[in-house]
């Protein structure tokens, strides 16, 4: 991996030097890329300026401002200036992105040339989307995308969605607290354990409990253990899966994490998932007041604002914490999701008492071109321009944009030190954590991508939120989810769900 980082560093440096002469020209006109200038490539500013799309019109359905919506609009304006195309951007709340595209898709209409959404929509959307043409798949810009994110945007080896963002769940922690010798001694004296980056969810819980409800950063405010996405229907199911992978994804048991691929029986109420939900219910005691109602925005604000010791989920909380205006800039650390001291083996029906860890390559933002679009060439060029190296480098430095690393060249610590003023040690830790998740593990879990994915996720959100609210015990809640999942599988058809699920399982089983 170090060799890869060195090669990437050289590549980035060489690219920067090569385009230095052109950088001024384009960055004068487009200040967004003032740090890098234009970077040569198939979809660079220079390349796009040679295209003439005058008289052609693109309509894009994207997320609300700022997350993804703001960069979509910004790059639309830039694209329009460069090519002469008219670009109309429509902003839609996250919860409605799926249906707003799906309704016209099913009705055979094409109101949008480009639809933005989450990468796990792929199974339901793919029949209405135009696969990414070979010239984009084979271009240099795409070769820089990590294999995990090629996989996330592809279906059975064919790229359907255009990679514009990278997502994974990882641990964020207050480095100034965990590395503080005074707190280390205090923690040791009171608990008998080492204060360190938590290796397991149990350690995470113990530390979060210890640091819950007192002013440990001496700012006159109370701080808490952890900020987590617990609000029902607000991406909470992804947070639950992050907590469950260590207990339930056994690297020695292939053939499915969410379902047994052969029988299509749900595994969601197995002991591994129940253990994770039990931990999560316990976590309601060390989140800030009202933390059980925290959505992603609340989690970002809470951890990014210095209110909690830990957080885990998408990159945004980390990027927000490391922005110049953050009170905890250069006081945070990144680490892989905690693991567990034991992992459930569903084949033997017993716990295996050994350390286990599994990265969750969670779904994230992506975009695709509608099959019914009459301007597919323009649309693909827009997406390619959106994700070109110069735009991408500028976008990932702005937390509110929601664009996170997904290219190999993103995992170069120097980028963050030089351009964003990060502490070199934190930048190194961040880049290594992300790279290790992307390329280093063979025990990865991919998001559920099957027909009716929203029905499955909605069921898990309802079940787990009942457990968090104390309406049901973890076992009862997940039993209820399993019953609901069986009904969904029956309605859609076990073979249909299996066929789609097998594609994700192949990725998880490294086939």
């Amino acid at each position, binding site marked *: 991996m170090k060799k890869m980082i060195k090669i990437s560093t050289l590549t980035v440096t060489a690219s920067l030097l090569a385009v230095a002469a052109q950088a001024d020209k384009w960055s004068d006109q487009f200040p967004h890329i003032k740090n890098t200038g234009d970077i040569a490539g198939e979809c660079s500013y220079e390349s796009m300026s040679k295209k003439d799309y005058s008289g052609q019109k693109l309509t894009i359905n994207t997320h609300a401002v700022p997350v993804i919506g703001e960069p979509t609009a910004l790059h639309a304006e830039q694209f329009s200036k460069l090519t002469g195309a008219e670009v109309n951007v429509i902003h839609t709340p996250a919860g409605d992105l799926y249906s707003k595209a799906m309704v016209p898709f099913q009705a055979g209409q094409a109101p949008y040339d480009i639809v933005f959404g989450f990468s796990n929509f792929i199974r339901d959307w793919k029949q209405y989307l135009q696969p990414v043409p070979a010239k984009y798949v084979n271009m240099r810009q795409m070769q820089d995308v990590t294999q995990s994110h090629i996989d996330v945007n592809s279906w059975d080896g064919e790229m359907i969605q255009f990679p514009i963002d990278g997502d994974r769940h990882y641990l964020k922690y207050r480095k100034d607290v965990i590395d503080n010798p005074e707190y280390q001694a205090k923690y040791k004296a009171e608990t008998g354990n080492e204060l360190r980056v938590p290796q397991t969810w149990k350690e995470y819980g113990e530390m979060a409990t210890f640091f819950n409800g007192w002013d440990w950063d001496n700012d006159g405010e109370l701080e808490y253990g952890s900020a987590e996405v617990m609000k029902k*229907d607000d991406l909470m199911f992804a947070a639950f899966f992050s907590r469950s992978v260590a207990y339930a994804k056994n690297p020695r048991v292939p053939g499915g994490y969410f379902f047994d691929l052969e029988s299509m029986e749900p595994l969601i109420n197995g002991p591994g998932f129940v253990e994770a939900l039990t931990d999560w219910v316990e976590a309601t005691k060390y989140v800030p007041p*009202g933390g059980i*109602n925290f959505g992603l925005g609340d989690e970002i604000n809470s951890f990014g604002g210095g209110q909690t010791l830990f957080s885990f989920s998408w990159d945004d909380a980390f990027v927000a914490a490391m922005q110049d205006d953050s009170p905890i800039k250069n006081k945070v650390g990144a680490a892989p999701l905690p693991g567990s001291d034991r992992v459930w083996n569903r084949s033997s029906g017993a716990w295996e008492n050994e350390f286990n860890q599994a990265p969750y390559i969670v779904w994230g933002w992506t975009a695709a071109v509608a099959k019914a679009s009459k301007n597919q060439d323009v649309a693909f060029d827009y997406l390619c321009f959106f994700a070109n190296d110069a735009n991408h480098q500028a976008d990932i430095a702005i937390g509110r944009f929601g664009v996170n690393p997904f290219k190999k060249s993103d995992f170069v610590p120097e980028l963050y030190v030089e351009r964003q003023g990060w502490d070199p040690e934190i930048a190194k830790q961040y880049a290594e954590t992300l790279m290790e998740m992307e390329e280093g593990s063979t025990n990865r879990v991919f998001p559920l991508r099957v*027909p009716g994915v929203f029905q499955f996720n909605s069921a898990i959100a309802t079940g787990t*939120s009942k457990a968090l609210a104390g*309406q049901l015990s973890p076992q009862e809640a997940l039993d209820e989810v399993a019953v609901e999942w069986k009904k969904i599988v029956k309605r859609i058809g076990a073979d249909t769900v299996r066929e789609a699920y097998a594609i994700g399982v192949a990725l998880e089983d490294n086939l």
Partner: protein
Amino acid sequence: MNFKHKYLFLLPGFLVLLGILIFPIGFTVRLSLSSWDSFFPGLDFIGLENYTRLFTDDPRFWEAFQRLSFMSVITVFLQYTIGFALAHMVWKEIKFQRFFRVLFLIPMMTTPVIMTVIWKTVFHESLGPVNDFFSLFGVTPLWLSSEALSKVTVIIVEVWQWTPFMFLLLLAGLLSLPKEPFLAASIDGAGPIRKFVYVTFPLMAPISIGAIIIRLIEASKIMDTVYVLTSGGPGTSSETSSFYIFIKGLREFQFGYSAALSLTYLIIMIISLTIIAKMLVKLMIRS
């Protein structure tokens, strides 16, 4: 005389009615007999399967309906009581009467979703001003994340938003009341309380019933407040029927099933509101 040409004049109205009322209802009925979802888009025919599922295998819908009934009745009762009190207050000649009349209408003129976002911030348990105040007394109520309080919070926001509507209707009613009964009551020596109980309230009964029914119809569709404030949580403790139908239809994309839910819900509401209206007439007018 031959009046056949009258049908020609009725035709535009009939076409509008067909387009905006009869066709959507007919289509919803047809949709409810299909399995249309994200994977099977189309009007196949599955008979009463969706209805069977609803009546035999979906307790969540009925729980949401019970919750909605509770919240609607409480909300409308509070809106009526507060709205009547405010209307009665500015009905009399008081200082700044016009100012108060406009002031009391402001909540209704604001956009519900925007105001609910503001209320969510106000009730935010760790960052909101309400708990800043309560923390002075050593308590931090969980307005949005406790099973019981989350319902109370939804009710507070609904009452704040829609009491002005009740106020407006009741004030219009009060202003249209004849003066003679009040003069007669005064000559008979009735005080303010007796005048209210024996003159104002009975005279206002028809308008009150209309206002209550209109608000009950509206309150039974509580959706945006729940969506923004709690997403139906924690768990399912603040989930209402309309929010549940929204989840099934536009989150899970089960169009066929959500059409069955909507029609069932519509029929239940028509029946229950008819009964409520008759009971109110009996209670407030005949007695």
